[in-house]
């Protein structure tokens, strides 16, 4: 572990530097727009994984929080009379809070069920919210809503939005890392492994699951808010999109469910690829074929996702080239031997 730490620190620094300088190096607006969408999905996949990857509850309704964040920012900006510009970004945390608040009742209901039933309930919530957005008056129905549009040049426009969502990403990854390393994260892992056993150890499973669920909804809501502001319009079918739910789950699966870096890698690969295909070949949804093929490859060759599989390969390679591994029986004997010495 100690040998890996400097490598990890280096990778983190490298990642932050690349995130920071990307629009300076690749300043083409098409590229920066692809980068913006990619980072939006990195935020969402990372936040989703913080709950689903750690607890094993595969939620397929996080579009609810993405959409609520999008509508919250748009409605608040319009009704509170925010002028287009930097000021609207102050509403991004509010969009996150709204998403978090909505996650309380929806989470309370969905988390009463386990596994498959839970998945179905989260999907149902997503369609209920989409239906509500189509039919409620204040959401503008099927014609949607338009937040104020800043009058920045194309380059400034993309860069500003990119850096805002990059900040949200840094905060989300930091939170995800903290959760993974905390007592709270340990309890989530225990729930994923065996919920009854965790309950038997005294873990307040209901409270832990709900807290993680709410925590994961907040960054998704913030991303939804930035996304709506960037597009300058928001419609029910795009705010509450079943494909969004599948995409972020698949991104986490591709990179490595339950790891901090996995969902980031998954989103980086899949979203940039999808955006690139859309730009190259139009919005034909041909990317879905690529998605499907890629997942077949991953499921067949790297079922645990890219990062855990690569880590395993590296450690296997290391143990082969470095010190010989202890004999299988050796550790048991050592344990027993010292026990006897201690007991004397």
């Amino acid at each position: 572990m100690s040998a890996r730490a400097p490598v990890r620190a280096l990778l983190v620094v490298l990642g932050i530097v690349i995130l920071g300088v990307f629009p300076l190096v690749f300043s083409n607006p098409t590229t920066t727009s692809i980068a913006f969408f990619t980072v939006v999905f990195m935020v969402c996949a990372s936040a989703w994984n913080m709950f689903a990857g750690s607890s094993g509850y595969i939620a397929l309704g996080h579009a609810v929080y993405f959409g609520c964040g999008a509508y919250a920012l748009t409605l608040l900006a319009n009704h509170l009379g925010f002028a287009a510009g930097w000021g609207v970004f102050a509403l991004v945390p509010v969009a996150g809070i709204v998403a978090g608040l909505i996650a309380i009742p929806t989470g309370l209901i969905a988390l009463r069920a386990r596994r498959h039933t839970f998945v179905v309930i989260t999907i149902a919530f997503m369609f209920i919210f989409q239906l509500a957005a189509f039919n409620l008056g204040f959401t503008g129905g099927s014609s949607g809503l338009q937040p104020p549009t800043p009058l920045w040049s194309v380059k400034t426009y993309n860069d500003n939005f990119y850096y805002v969502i990059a900040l949200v990403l840094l905060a989300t990854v930091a939170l995800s890392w903290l959760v993974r390393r905390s007592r709270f994260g340990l309890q989530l892992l225990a729930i994923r492994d065996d919920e009854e056993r965790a309950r038997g150890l005294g873990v307040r499973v209901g409270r832990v699951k709900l807290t993680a669920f709410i925590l994961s909804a907040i960054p998704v809501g913030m991303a939804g808010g930035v996304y709506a502001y960037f597009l300058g319009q928001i419609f029910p079918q795009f705010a509450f999109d079943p494909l969004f739910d599948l995409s972020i789950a698949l991104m986490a699966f591709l990179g490595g469910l339950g790891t901090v870096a996995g969902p980031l890698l998954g989103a980086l690969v899949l979203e940039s690829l999808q955006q690139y295909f859309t730009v190259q070949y139009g919005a034909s949804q041909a990317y879905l074929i690529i998605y499907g093929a890629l997942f077949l490859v991953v499921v067949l060759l790297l079922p645990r996702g890219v990062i855990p599989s690569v880590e395993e390969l590296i450690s296997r390679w290391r143990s082969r080239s470095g010190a010989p591994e202890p004999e299988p029986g050796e550790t048991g004997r050592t344990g027993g031997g010292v026990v006897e010495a201690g007991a004397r």
Partner: protein
Amino acid sequence: MTTSEPASGNGNGGAAPGELLLKVEGVTAGYGGGDILKGVSFTVARNEIMCIVGPNGSGKSTLLSTISGILRPRTGEIAFLGDSLVGLAPRQILGKGVVLVPQAHSLFAEMTVRENVEMGAYTVRDPALVRRRRDEIEEMFPLVRERAADKAGSLSGGQQRLVELARSLMLDPSLIVLDEPSIGLDPPTRRTVFQMVRLMNEQGRTILLVEQNARAGLKLSTRGLVLENGRVRLTGTGREILEHPEIGSLYLGGAVSSTPAG
């Protein structure tokens, strides 16, 4: 969360050896309609190893569940160091220094050995304290250090038992309640596990265990208790019970003292 953070030294601090630690009085408990425990009374003194034996269905595991708060007694009183445990949640009882090690396979198979051990102290907020305890435990159980990064599910049955014992020490408990520690283990591994239990006892921890292998359990213990149909049939030193003619023939297959035990 506030109630369940023993800061330090439950195991050795406090009162002198021989002091009354656990008092169970007239406890009636059961699942659903019927009573499994029918007025069970006994005491456990500090630094004892007390072994509960009895035939299947006599209420041994039910008794442990009742003490550790998983099952609430219908009548009767359970007091730990004079404080009632009745009505407390398992987590609060854990906080008082009473730790249950459930029957086999209580580790989280997909989590690493180290994560499993740390789960034993998930209620402790001070990371430095957790690290210190973990270091002490790794000193005592070298296996925990050697296999720290391995998944618990990849360990053998005996190794898993040792990790379960190690995990139970993370809260520095005064009383460790073991439910059938030797179940499913071959004799050499059972001896290792029992040696570890004895070592934990020598370090000042009181042990209350239920053991299906009555002879081995009683040999390990300072005192024994025979449970029969939810009632206490007999208490005494381990040797007294082993040599009791009736108990010997009923539960231990007779001719006890002459047979070597594990």
